[in-house]
């Protein structure tokens, strides 16, 4: 047991910090700090900057152009990136699709798609959920029928995050309706510019437009866009989900969020003193900080165990549940700290147009973020589904 970082790890942290210092554009840093939309261009710019340094794909093997970092390195990077207010990396191509292609894709698929993910030529989105298939994903109804050298796809996907920016979508589709649900699903790569693909935005409760409905009507998909074998898609999807949940604890985000709470509470006055000195508020902050300190170590313990060869299962479910509880609690604190100035709807249109509207906290839309992040416990396998997984695994055999 040794909780201190090695010299090599310390040097790595320094290197990361220096890189962020020199390469993170001010406008992007500012947008992240203020909780603003980066836009497609902003995300792409940051991806390009990381890719040039070779740090865009921390968990990819070197032979595919990844950094192949170990758990501690990834943790250090996440911490530093969040602390510097670097944009999050859009995960759909990099950490969801890529691992599947690397494990189950053909050589031709790997050679074609992986470099395009790194270069940013393709923007991927995830087409799993449907209106009737959320937690019960295996009940999905979108069909793909082989017809004249193509798959013809019909159905509707929903909640497709950033689908408005994407040119490619990886989908789970039904290729056999006669068998058990899980055994008739295939994993298909679909060009969103194909005729018959329609993307409709869904406005979320915070006013943001980050998710979409994707309608698929007689969409022709080349047969070579099938990943792995037909009707084996469920296996690949489950494999992907374990990767979707790496960094699911979001420790870096929580650390940055807590620092923001302290900033807000130092600027906000309550009864003539900074709010951070108010005993009730200070207690709330301390309580979360205590949880977060333990969480950081839980996260490191679990991901190093996984790196040592144990498949992440129960662990990633635990990280997801506790990590999202902590993140949401921090959003809740930021909202409280904002006081009466948490109430305005901080739209982009408001800024600049109205310089009298105060941003005494320069904290951005704290209440909107609180509402938006309710999603954390719903998507990526809801916290209820994760608890079922934990219970199933740990109560097995009455142990």
């Amino acid at each position: 047991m040794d909780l201190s970082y090695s010299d090599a790890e310390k040097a790595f942290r320094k290197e990361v910090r220096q890189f962020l210092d020199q390469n993170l554009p001010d406008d992007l840093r500012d947008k992240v700090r203020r909780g603003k939309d980066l836009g497609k261009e902003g995300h792409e710019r940051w991806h390009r900057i990381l890719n040039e340094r070779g740090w865009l794909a921390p968990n990819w093997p070197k032979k595919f152009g990844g950094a192949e970092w170990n758990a501690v390195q990834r943790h250090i990077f996440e911490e530093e990136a969040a602390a510097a207010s670097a944009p999050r990396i859009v995960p759909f191509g990099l950490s969801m699709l890529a691992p599947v292609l690397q494990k189950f894709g053909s050589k031709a698929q790997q050679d074609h798609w992986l470099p395009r993910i790194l270069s940013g030529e393709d923007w991927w989105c995830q087409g799993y959920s449907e209106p009737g298939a959320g937690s019960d994903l295996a009940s999905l109804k979108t069909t793909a029928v082989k017809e004249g050298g193509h798959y013809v796809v019909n159905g509707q996907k929903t909640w497709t995050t950033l689908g408005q920016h994407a040119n490619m979508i990886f989908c789970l589709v039904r290729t056999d309706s006669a068998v058990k649900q899980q055994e008739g699903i295939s994993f298909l790569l679909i060009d969103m510019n194909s005729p018959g693909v329609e993307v409709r935005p869904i406005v979320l409760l915070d006013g943001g437009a980050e998710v979409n409905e994707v309608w698929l009507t007689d969409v022709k998909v080349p047969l070579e866009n099938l990943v792995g074998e037909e009707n084996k898609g469920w296996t690949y999807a489950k494999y992907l989900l374990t990767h979707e949940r790496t960094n699911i604890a979001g420790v870096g985000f929580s650390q940055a969020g807590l620092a923001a709470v302290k900033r807000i509470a130092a600027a906000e006055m309550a009864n003539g003193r900074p709010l951070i000195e108010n005993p009730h508020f200070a207690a709330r902050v301390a309580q979360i900080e205590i949880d977060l300190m333990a969480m950081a170590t839980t996260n490191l313990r679990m991901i190093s165990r996984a790196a040592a060869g144990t498949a992440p299962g129960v662990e990633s479910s635990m990280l997801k549940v506790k990590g999202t509880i902590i993140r949401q609690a921090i959003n809740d604190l930021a909202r409280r700290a904002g006081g009466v100035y948490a109430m305005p709807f901080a739209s982009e249109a408001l800024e600049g147009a109205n310089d009298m509207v105060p941003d005494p906290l320069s904290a951005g839309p704290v209440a909107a973020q609180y509402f938006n992040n309710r999603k954390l416990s719903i998507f990526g396998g809801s916290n209820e589904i994760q608890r079922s997984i934990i219970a199933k695994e740990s109560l097995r055999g009455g142990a």
Partner: protein
Amino acid sequence: MNFELTQERQMLQDSLQRYLRDKYTTETRNAILQSEAGMSEEIWQQLADLGVIAALFAEEQGGFGGAGFDLAVVFEALGRAGVVEPFMETAILAGGLIARLGNPAQQDLLDRLMAGGLQLAFAHGEPTGRYDLTHVATTAHAQDDTILLTGRKAVVFNAERADMLVVSARESGAVDDPEGLSLFLVPKDTPGLGIQGYALLAGGRAAEVTLEQVRLGAQARLGAPGQAAEAITAQIAAACVAQTAETLGAMETACALTKDYLMTRKQFGRPIGSFQALAHRMSDVLIEMEQARSAVINAAGHLEAAPAQRERFVSAAKNLIGRVGRLVAEESIQLHGGIAMTQEYELAHIAKRIVMADHRFGDVDHHLERFIAFSAA
């Protein structure tokens, strides 16, 4: 003890609920939210015609209600429908202060107000005041027959639409001194009055209000110079009763939507409400809802009590509703899953009303501290 509503109140509640159910649909309300004005003049007038505003005033003020339970009945119904029209600002806050302190000429405004022909705002809180009721740095300098107001007011609801603002300002004393506070009626076109408006996350509009040498006649003052603190506290107490009732109404809607959804949404071939993990959480929410209703009843029933007792119950209700409101909003969203995250769905607006209510008139912690203070006294 009797927990039944009086016949009059029951009738008011029924007609109000019927009207809102028919007229204030999700589509209508969401269109109002998107509109520039952030409110509907038509609905305002129709609700005034139904007697909603008059029900908030006592008979001697020209109304037919005005007690804690009248406020609770009206605002619970408004809350259920997620109404964003500014009844709180116009009637309870500014209107209530005029009724409490105004001279006969000022009181004349109330007839117009109850008929729906007047909109008001209460410009009191300031940028560094957070929830402190007596924190007023805005100054009022009286000289001969004129008064000059200078200062800035934060997040003033309904300021843009208001025909008049009731503005608090200090005639003497330190910045958080209860002594020395006065209230003034400021017509909206008074020179030196600046209003910069914006939309609010939970609907409606507010503004930053600046006062630069705003010149008023002495007849603009409400009540005696420097003596307004008591009336402000009493009227904010009424506002807390109204607002906790409103939030309770919104919580009822959140629960109703969630119960329905648990029984109709199917995953894994069965209604999700049949999963015990969800059913038990719904049960906990329903238990807390009963507590919430009791807290509102406690506060409404003590609105006419002596100040120390009144404030203790008001802070208890505000604290409890803040806590349970958050639980209800968060659990309703979680038990729904993704659908609750969409702006179009009724719950989205309702959840925002519930949670953001904790940012007005003091949050959970603020009222916990007040409760401790009033309990020790």
